[in-house]
């Protein structure tokens, strides 16, 4: 084939399909990508540094702002890390409430992933349907903690408040209606031939390579690797629920997409079981007013919506953390973007980036 002069194209920082302020420098031969260099940092707020000037409790609202689409999961990861450090036993009821809220958060995050992916490929309708249902989850969160997006609901030792009376009936109604909504997405997006033509066999991710690059979450499972911390290394009360881990076969964009839809079904299943088993009791352990964890460090990871979300907390025995580092799955999942895009056409870059489901609040921290 005739080789032409290589051109450089900036995709972003303002580009709707990068889902935030993200910049990819594309080097292209004709329309074929020869290099895709991701540049991040436009949304850097220094959250890890801010933590050092805050008390342990005061850092909770900042974790919301990492992956703002799944704030409950971010809260949970952090408070569980501190609880591990302080050896706090969390009451049963609080654990179950956490599971319910985390799984709702996971569904909300996947709904955005599924919806925006539909937009990226060119189908606006699917996006509207997903947001319609996500709105109901936001309403549920508003009932529980008063906020819709930046929730700050988890506390070290439990949760901020018990569930209000109207929550469980509203949740049950949501659980009843959601499966048919998921069928709608399957009909609208997954079954669409144009969508399939754009995503099947595009952006193949080899399981071995995925593991080597530290890719986690639905992106890894779409390549057929069984790795879900809720199953492989159960934390909280996840070992008490019966659910499956959906896996993909080829590891292409289509598998990454369908994995998320299947995961939403499993999350609904977990929530239903958690509601049935929900015990009575306190929602907060007895913790001192001023938290002073013993000097030392701890690393705790949970299965976030985007992948393995880890918190590394170092304490020097004072009431403020000495250092906090967050293992942000979106950031690490981006590491393979260059290899993934090489050889594909420019339109496929959008499809590949969308299928990775990054959120820039988490990439930049």
């Amino acid at each position, binding site marked *: 084939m005739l080789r032409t002069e290589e051109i450089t194209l900036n995709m972003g920082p303002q580009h709707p399909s990068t889902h935030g302020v993200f910049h990819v420098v594309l080097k292209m031969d004709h329309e074929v990508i020869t290099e895709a260099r991701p540049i991040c940092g436009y949304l850097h707020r220094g959250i890890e540094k801010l933590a050092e000037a805050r008390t342990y409790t005061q850092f909770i609202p900042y974790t919301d702002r990492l992956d703002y689409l799944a704030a409950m999961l971010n809260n949970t990861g952090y408070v569980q890390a501190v609880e591990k450090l302080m050896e706090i036993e969390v009451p049963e009821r609080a654990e179950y409430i956490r599971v319910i809220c985390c799984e709702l958060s996971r569904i909300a995050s996947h709904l955005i992933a599924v919806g925006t992916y539909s937009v990226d490929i060119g189908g606006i309708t699917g996006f509207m349907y997903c947001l319609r249902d996500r709105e109901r989850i936001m309403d549920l969160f508003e*009932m529980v903690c008063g906020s819709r997006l*930046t929730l*700050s609901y988890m506390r070290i030792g439990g949760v901020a408040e018990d569930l209000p009376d109207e929550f469980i009936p509203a949740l049950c109604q949501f659980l009843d209606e959601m499966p048919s909504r998921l069928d709608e997405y399957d009909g609208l997006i997954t079954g669409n*031939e*144009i969508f399939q033509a754009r995503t099947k066999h595009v952006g193949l991710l080899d399981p071995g390579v995925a593991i080597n690059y530290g890719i986690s979450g639905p992106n890894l499972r779409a390549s057929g690797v069984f790795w879900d911390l809720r199953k492989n290394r159960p934390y909280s009360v996840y070992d008490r629920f019966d659910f499956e881990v959906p896996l993909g076969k080829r590891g292409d964009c289509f598998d990454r997409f369908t994995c998320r839809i299947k995961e939403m079904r499993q999350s609904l299943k977990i929530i239903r079981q958690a509601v049935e088993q929900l015990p009575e009791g306190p929602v907060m352990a007895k913790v001192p007013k001023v938290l002073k964890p013993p000097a030392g460090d701890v690393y705790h990871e949970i299965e976030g919506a985007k992948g393995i979300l880890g918190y590394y907390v170092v304490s020097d025995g004072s009431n403020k953390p000495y250092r906090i580092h967050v293992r942000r799955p979106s950031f690490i999942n981006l590491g393979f973007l260059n290899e993934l895009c090489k050889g594909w056409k420019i339109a496929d870059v959008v499809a590949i980036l969308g299928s990775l489901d990054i959120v820039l609040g988490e990439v930049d921290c």
Partner: protein
Amino acid sequence: MFGQGLLKGLQITLQELFTKKVTVQYPEESLPLAPRFHGEFVLDVEQCIACSLCANACPNKVIEIETAKLDKKRVLTGYMMRLQYCLFCGLCVEACNKGAIRFSQKFEMAKYFRDQIPLILYKGEPPVQEEQGNTGITAGEAEGTEV
């Protein structure tokens, strides 16, 4: 058959046409808010004992409390919130033992100018306080918790 998926999609959108609308015409109508909704703050000046617990709980130093000594008692002379820095996390409301600072249901807080943003919840002369219930203890506590 190719195109079946497209027809399925059209069928779904057609069905949706006949279901109840979810859109709300916002300024004219609005949705009911949850009782716990985090809206604008209200301060019950009578209840507030100027202990500064709320200000200390805040991660972003939003709350500024001014106090004065009145017959060995700490009284409130000013309560200001720099709402532009507020995360609406609710830690201040949780910290208040007296239930003096609370969220209201008001969410339309947009302002035209930056200097209008700070929310002044109390400013002025020390309120005349009749009730003498727990002043002795709280005055002592207030000394300890002052920033």
